[in-house]
């Protein structure tokens, strides 16, 4: 469940190195930037070599069951599954990389692709059954709804009940700085597409966001690329609190580790609900197969009970605030001016003395 998967520090270092090493050799830099940074890739052979190529932000372990189920009904199809970060995925599709299906948790980037004419439309009984908020223009379809949660160790709470609102969280942090100094983890929104989406939507929806960021910034937080690493850090005891973690992933890891001393809290004043979406890129050739896979994902997305599937259904994560709305408004924070302004403010609040994850 990594959305901008490259480990922050490593990647930053690599990039810096590249920049230094290649100096102003812009052409080569551009080529490297244009090439898709693949994090993982696996081919699931079918009975023919007709290949459905998927690019996705979901990890192999997470998505494998879906592919297997799909191949049960379409054994003739070979599935080529590529994992990439949401930003990489967006760039690849924008630059015309040939994929038949793009699945991403960064709703804003997916919507921008659809809006800019880089997606093909798909319509079936399944898509018609989808609620309005889970699709846009027959181009983009949501099949999971996953809330953003706060994960904290009971130790840090010291017997107090977990905070239910941001205001309570602010009070907790302000009153106990020693427990949380260097022990808060959150997304590095400069790097993570999903982190940026969560942050911008939260900043728009509640003014407590900036106050909370300010407080967290004072406590020297650690910045992460992905939910997974944050949850792992809480489990390992490195972090007392991870803010804005994908709830489904947190719950799954807790269940795996059987840790009772870690609380998963959903904020009551506002909680983001992310929709994982799929589009058929304009470059797709196996559109029928891609449509069939989307239909299967939607069928699972519309199931009533969570069952054994790694990703929760659409009905699972419904919070009082509803999901992040699929629509052109998502593109607002992708505008360079807005992004620059938002990141400046975010850095001001959070990166008071830069802590880079070792």
């Amino acid at each position, binding site marked *: 469940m990594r959305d901008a998967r490259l480990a922050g520090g490593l990647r930053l270092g690599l990039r810096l190195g590249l920049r230094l090493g290649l100096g102003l050799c812009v052409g080569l830099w551009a080529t490297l930037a244009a090439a898709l940074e693949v994090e993982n890739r696996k081919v699931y052979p079918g009975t023919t070599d007709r290949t459905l190529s998927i690019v996705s932000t979901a990890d192999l372990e997470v998505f494998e069951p879906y592919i297997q189920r799909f191949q049960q009904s379409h054994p003739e199809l070979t599935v080529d599954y590529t994992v990439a970060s949401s930003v990489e995925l967006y760039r690849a599709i924008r630059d015309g990389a040939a994929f038949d299906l793009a699945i991403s948790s960064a709703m804003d980037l997916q919507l921008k692709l659809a809006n800019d004419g880089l997606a093909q439309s798909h319509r079936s009984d399944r898509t018609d059954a989808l609620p309005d908020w889970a699709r846009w223009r027959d181009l983009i379809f949501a099949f999971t709804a996953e809330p953003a949660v706060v994960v904290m160790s009971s130790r840090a709470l010291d017997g107090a009940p977990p905070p239910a609102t941001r205001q309570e969280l602010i009070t907790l942090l302000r009153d106990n700085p020693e427990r949380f100094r260097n022990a808060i983890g959150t997304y590095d929104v400069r790097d993570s597409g999903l982190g940026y989406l969560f942050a911008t939507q939260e900043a728009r929806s509640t003014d407590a966001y900036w106050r909370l960021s300010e407080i967290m910034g004072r406590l020297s937080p650690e910045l992460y690329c992905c939910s997974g690493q944050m949850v792992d850090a809480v489990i390992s005891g490195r972090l007392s609190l991870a803010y804005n973690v994908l709830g489904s992933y947190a719950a799954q890891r807790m269940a795996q580790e059987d840790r009772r001393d870690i609380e998963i809290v959903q904020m009551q004043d506002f909680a983001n609900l992310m929709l994982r979406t799929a589009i058929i890129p304009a470059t797709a050739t196996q559109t029928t197969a891609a449509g069939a896979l989307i239909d299967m994902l939607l069928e699972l997305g519309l199931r009533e009970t969570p069952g054994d599937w790694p990703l929760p259904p659409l009905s699972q994560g419904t919070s009082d605030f509803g999901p992040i709305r699929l629509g052109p*408004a998502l593109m607002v924070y992708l505008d360079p*001016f*807005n992004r620059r302004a938002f990141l400046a403010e975010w850095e001001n609040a959070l990166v008071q003395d830069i802590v880079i994850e070792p």
Partner: protein
Amino acid sequence: MIARLSIGHRLTVLLAGVAALLSLLSWWMVSELARQAAARSQDNVLAASATTIAETIRSEQGEVRLELPYSALSMLGAISEDRVFYKVVAGERVLTGYDDLPVPTDAATGARVAFETGQYSGEAIRMASVRRTVLAGAGPVPVVVTVAQTLSGVDAVSGQLSRLAAALSLAFFLVAVGLSVFAARASLRPLNAFAQAVSRRGPSDLRPLRRDAPPELAPLRGALNRLMDRLGQSIRRSEDFIAEAAHRVRTPLATVRAQAEIALRSAESEESRQRLRRIIRAVDESSRSAGQLLDHATVAYRAEDLARDRIDLGELVAQAAAALEPTATMKDIAFHIATSQARVVGDAVLLESALGNVLDNAVKYSPDETTVHIAVSAEEGVARITVTDEGPGLGEGPIETLTERFRRGGNTEGVVGSGLGLTIAADVLAAHGGRLDLRNAAEGGGACVTLVLPAD
């Protein structure tokens, strides 16, 4: 073709045609209005969106800065699922947005808000531009904010309304056709009633039409009445003329007959007596004809305005028999009268003339020393006078034709007559709503003539 088409159909087709035209017009108008309304509301939202963006434009350290407000794009997302594009240009430089997005042609010069429809990314789009001037660096910089949206939402809304309008127009048209049929029928009803009133009339009923007619039919009624009046007048004139002529002929004929009788008495030779008898016979025939013509004219005249006397048929028969008694006695013919109670309403003069003619025939065509049976009966609302003689009967030829004018049978050798007697009788009975039955008595061969009348 048009002239032969029924007025009802013409009216229906015309009204339905008008309704179809109006339906089409209203459909087109509603569709057009819906399209305009949808387009205008899209324009308003686009303008509002561009304005919200333009309002955030400011200059910071000589640079033009702006922020894209969340509402600027969310308001566009709220009205439809259309694709949205935007672009901000300061002077010549594209600040942000879609570099290749077209801009309304008069965005830089015309009104503060400019609209245009164009093509972008393979779809038709509607653009709105808002212009602002910002002081930055060396001087004022014109900044143009363009927001564009595809048109599928507008098309969907106007298409939906247009389909709704089409359905309503069709319903309106069907109702209008139904009403047209009804209207055509209703407006033709007086005409049909009028036509029926005219066609229900008897063949010789030339009284003017008195029934109420709508003003449109008044000229027709007037013309018809005038025509009938003229017709009546001309018939009356010719009848008068015939009566007058008959009358004028009769008087000199009487003189001629008297003179011929005198001449016959004093005639010496058998040859001249023979000649004189032939003259007398011819005069008799002519005089009989003139008399019958006069009677016939009387029938035509009186039938127009029939007297309504209550008549006892027994008395009528008695009178008629009495009138013919002298002639019958001369031939030793006896009347045998059997009456039962029978009354009719009608014109006594005419009925007397009718019965007189029938009895006259019976006496005239019967051999001497025979009996003429006259029976009066009434049953089931029908009164009958049956005259049966013991003469030669009505002959071999077709019996019905004997009531035609001037028609005489083949058995009239030596019998004076004009052929009008049965015509008069038949006309009188027809005027009374009755009829004249002619047949031969079953045995004995005599004629059996029945006057049939509706009983009182």
